[in-house]
């Protein structure tokens, strides 16, 4: 036996595998298995401090990449904790898993095709009809329809566990809309930066090729004149929305929601800023029952009426087909061995957990006789049985009255239940306070149908229990996620996981911007700009909070009036005047005044959440950080107001930088910029009307220049104290000053060319003319004659541009399409 290097021995010294379970890392003698040895040695070389440092790094990277998991009952996103230790799977084990699951995917496909087609399996008595009809995913409108694309299943996943004897077992099938592949990808990217040498040394198989082949298969079936492959998501409130956005970005698919789709006749279209675009391929992450409120769940607000007819007619390919989820029923677990022989003429290569369906009286009596050794579970998904609020239950653990209740229910409606063999999971090491500890885990493996048959992703998503209990039924939500490393028997070449210049075709498929995305982009731009203006007012006010000078106090009062005017600050009783410091503090911490920075930032965040796939991780991170700053500052002291406003303005500037540098110059970017330009023009006009015209003083003009970031330019140009005419010239007419009205107008004119042509000539003309009007509003006046009425005209012209833009691109204008 090879002797372990000293540090490795110490790393393993206090590692005690769980009693009676298979441990992935060490064998019965406590020695590391051969395929774990390079990993253990590498960790030993790094030392505990370095391991901990790198683990923190991986966690941070995941957070920064926006790997969030939203729990339905919680408002806030939660980080998905990643174990710094992967589960390592050797070549031989992987061959077994891969072959077993490819066979199983073929079996699932054949079974679904029979259940919705010839129904021979039922008629010939291989499976009772009540097992088919019991699944809430047996979608009756799909019976007899042939799925577009010639198959039901395009993406399939199975949850696996390893028994004490070392054999892998299938614990559950996922065929509705399997989740987790995107998380697996995120985990891999984070971990590969943590332990790059080790991954290389071990020849860990890469994931990129799997995704590329899946993407190619779907992309090839989308017609060239279509909107390309669209990923249909339930939206930002779904617990796995992060993954939908992440996968859409990674695969180059358009992320769409039901409201983006419209069915005309039996064809599906996407509402885009350029009009309706045909859709023929939808990667579906929305549960089938919610896809069509007319034909399926009438309570759904997430789908689009008519999608079922479109699927039936073959006009649109759903991946997976509507109704595929039927094979997820636990009841079918009892029948797969038989169905495999019937459909494939072969035994299952990889067994599934032994299952008895209690709708069969003899089987029911068998499990009742072994009550204490059996795990009981609902036979079908979607049952709301309080006995199973946490999933499966062990017969042994049931309290007497719960046991009586279950026996009653088994007698009345036995078919609602299955009994299953209690599965003990294998354990894998996780780092806990710099020490390895064994924890039970399940492995989810993903398979994709390609033009050359099924292919498995060499890796997977592991859920590692937070407790030591190895019983599968006691696995709870929570715990850790872990990457799965599959060891190659050949050297592994490099292939990027990230979109890069070397793969320019990656986003080629995206040709459309949905109306919904455009709307969120526009408002993201507007809210961020409005937050910027609001923060500038707060900062200017905070800077003047100690002033006693009469003119300075008067300027402060004008700033306060602006804050009140646009809803950042309430009016006080009897119109009493706010002290400057109080006003600044109040606006900076308000979570209900609609014009206050925290509220505006939250609105920007909401708009950004709905278009996660369009934003770079950096841009998203900045908005998220800004929101966090606002929320954490809710109980900040008034003396911190200036610094907090200053810091938030820096974050906003950073976002602008990213928007400028890192977003590709797409239509989406142009729309974001239009939102910003319009809003900046409006703010400028409002600042000028209160501080720059009428009874101005040097103090009000200085405040105005400060709000518009223009003191330095002004000082450089005029060397004198501010005069109203010169200030007006700089802030209204100077088209070289990025904070002048004329500059915004010039940008808006330039952005016209970046926008898609619209079929609606009238609205397009109105929008073009609104920009001409805006430019015209700033002519025919010399700077020294600018007055309130003039500024008001400019403000109205900016407003008209916003309205015309909304009418052209953001309103529902699909009338007339399809006729």
């Amino acid at each position, binding site marked *: 036996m090879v002797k372990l290097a000293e540090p490795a021995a110490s790393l393993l010294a206090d590692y005690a595998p769980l009693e009676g379970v298979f441990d992935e890392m060490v064998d019965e003698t406590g020695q590391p298995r051969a395929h774990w040895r390079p990993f253990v040695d590498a960790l030993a070389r790094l030392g505990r401090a370095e391991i901990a440092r790198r683990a923190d790094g991986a966690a941070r990277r995941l957070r920064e990449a926006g790997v969030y998991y939203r729990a339905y009952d919680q408002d806030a996103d939660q980080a998905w904790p990643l174990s710094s230790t992967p589960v390592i799977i050797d070549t031989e084990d992987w061959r077994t898993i891969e072959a077993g699951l490819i066979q199983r995917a073929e079996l699932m496909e054949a079974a679904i095709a029979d259940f919705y087609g010839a129904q021979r399996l039922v008629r010939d008595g291989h499976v009772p*009809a009540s097992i088919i*009809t*019991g699944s809430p995913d047996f979608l009756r409108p799909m019976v007899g329809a042939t799925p577009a694309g010639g198959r039901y299943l395009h993406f399939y996943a199975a949850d696996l566990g390893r028994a004490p004897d070392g054999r892998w077992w299938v614990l559950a099938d996922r065929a509705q809309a399997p989740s987790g592949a995107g998380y697996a990808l995120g985990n891999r990217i984070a971990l590969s930066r943590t332990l790059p040498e080790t991954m290389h040394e071990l020849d860990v198989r890469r994931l990129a090729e799997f995704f590329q082949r899946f993407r190619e298969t779907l992309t090839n079936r989308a017609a060239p004149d279509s909107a390309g492959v669209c990923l249909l998501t339930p939206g930002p409130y779904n617990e796995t929305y992060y993954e939908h956005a992440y996968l859409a970005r990674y695969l180059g698919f358009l992320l769409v929601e039901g409201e983006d789709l419209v069915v005309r006749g039996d064809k599906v279209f996407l509402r885009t800023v350029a009009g309706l675009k045909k859709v023929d391929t939808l990667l579906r992450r929305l549960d089938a029952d919610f896809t069509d409120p*007319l034909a399926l769940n009438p309570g759904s607000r997430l789908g689009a009426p008519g999608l079922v007819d479109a699927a039936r007619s073959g006009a649109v390919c759903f991946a997976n087909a509507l109704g595929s989820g039927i094979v997820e029923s636990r009841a079918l677990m009892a029948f797969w061995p038989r169905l495999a022989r019937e459909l494939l003429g072969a035994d299952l290569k990889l067994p599934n957990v032994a299952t008895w369906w209690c709708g069969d009286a003899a089987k029911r009596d068998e499990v009742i006789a072994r009550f204490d050794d059996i795990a009981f579970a609902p036979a079908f998904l979607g049952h709301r049985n309080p006995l199973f609020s946490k999933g499966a239950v062990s017969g042994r653990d049931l309290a007497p009255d719960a046991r009586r209740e279950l026996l009653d229910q088994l007698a009345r409606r036995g*078919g609602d239940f299955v009994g299953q063999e209690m599965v003990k999971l294998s354990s894998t090491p996780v780092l806990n306070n710099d020490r390895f500890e064994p924890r039970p885990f399940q492995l989810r493996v993903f398979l994709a149908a390609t033009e050359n048959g099924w292919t498995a992703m060499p890796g997977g998503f592991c859920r590692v229990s937070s407790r030591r209990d190895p019983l599968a039924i006691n696995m709870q939500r929570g715990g850790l996620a872990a990457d799965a490393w599959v060891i190659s028997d050949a050297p592994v070449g490099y292939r990027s996981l990230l979109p890069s210049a070397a793969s320019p075709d990656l986003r080629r498929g995206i040709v459309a911007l949905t109306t919904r995305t455009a709307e969120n982009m526009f408002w993201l731009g507007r809210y961020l700009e409005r937050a910027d203006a609001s923060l500038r007012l707060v900062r200017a006010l905070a800077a003047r909070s100690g002033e006693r000078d009469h003119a300075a106090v008067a300027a402060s009062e004008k700033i306060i009036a602006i804050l009140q005017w646009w809803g950042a600050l309430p009016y006080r009783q009897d119109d009493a005047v706010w002290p400057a410091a109080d006003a600044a503090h109040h606006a900076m911490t308000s979570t209900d005044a609609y014009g206050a920075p925290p509220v505006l930032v939250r609105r920007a965040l909401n708009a950004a959440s709905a278009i996660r796939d369009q934003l770079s991780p950096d841009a998203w991170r900045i908005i998220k950080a800004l929101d966090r700053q606002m929320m954490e500052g809710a109980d900040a002291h008034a003396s911190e107001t200036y610094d907090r406003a200053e810091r938030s303005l820096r974050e906003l500037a950073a976002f602008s930088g990213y928007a400028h540098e890192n977003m590709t110059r797409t239509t989406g970017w142009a729309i974001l910029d239009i939102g910003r330009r319009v809003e900046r023009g409006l703010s400028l006009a409002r600042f000028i009307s209160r501080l720059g015209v009428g009874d101005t003083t040097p103090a009000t003009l200085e405040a105005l220049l400060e709000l518009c970031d223009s003191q330095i330019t002004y000082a450089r140009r005029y060397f004198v104290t501010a005069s109203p005419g010169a200030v007006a010239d700089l802030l209204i007419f100077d088209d070289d000053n990025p904070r002048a009205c004329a500059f915004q107008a010039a940008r808006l004119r330039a952005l016209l060319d970046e926008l898609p042509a619209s079929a609606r000539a009238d609205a397009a003309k109105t929008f073009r003319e609104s920009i001409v009007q805006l430019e015209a509003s700033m002519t025919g006046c010399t700077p020294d004659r600018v007055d309130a009425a003039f500024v008001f005209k400019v403000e109205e012209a900016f407003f008209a541009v916003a309205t015309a833009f909304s009418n052209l691109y953001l309103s529902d204008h699909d009338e007339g399409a399809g006729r």
Partner: protein
Amino acid sequence: MKYRVRLVSTTRYEAAAPRGAHVLRVRPREDDRQRVTGFAVEIEPPSALIVDGVDFFGNGTQSFVIEERHEHFTFRATAEVDVRDGASFAGGTTAPWEDVRAAAWASSHIDAQAPAHFLHPSRIARPVPDITHYAAQSFTPGRDIFDAAQELMRRIHADFTYDVDATDVTTAPADAFAARRGVCQDYAHVMIAGVRGLGLPAAYVSGYLHAAPPSGMPRLEGADATHAWVSVWCGETAGWIDFDPTNAILANESHIVIGVGRDYADVAPETGVIVTSGKQALDVAVDVTPVA
């Protein structure tokens, strides 16, 4: 018995709807008890295309999209139907209910009328423990399923108060049961939930009711709008038998079947998706006239 039936339904929208997509299920069924000799549907505002179809359970559908802005939506359905005289069950013994249950779960029939479709929880009619226990009192060990179901129907009729104000179209069976009040839809859902709770197949039948039966019998409830009753599968031999718990009778020549499904959601006369922000008001009138 021959009838002319007419259904007029109007929905008014507080805020005008720019567009609406609708499916109607108002065409009387063709089966061995009734024949449809005439049928027509009119809608307002009009639609460019009304597509006739048949859903999974064999119910006739009309699907269409209204593309113009509208403040109200009206449909009028007229039909002429010939219903065979007599009750839906001629009498005689059926099987013990436990045997029927075992046969339903083990059945290898999966066509639209197969019992397997009607065993499981559906959107509205899910087994509810209280209703199951209530129903169980009629299903004593070894009892003939027809006798048991008939007794359950009579008990529901006796224990419930017909009350058009107590419930609405969205009331859950558990709530109607707790209040012991409701209309035909609630009576039917409660009976279905009870029968299914015991592991037996039960279907929801929507239809029209002719309220003034010929022989001077009492006027029946449920004739002012569409009616609903329950079909219970009583084994391979007896098949489906229709019980009307609102009137405590077996369905007969006064019952004109429109649709059969798992509950109201499968056979609602109108299902629509409209974009409107305000409230809606529904007004339905039904007219059933015997013809010579």
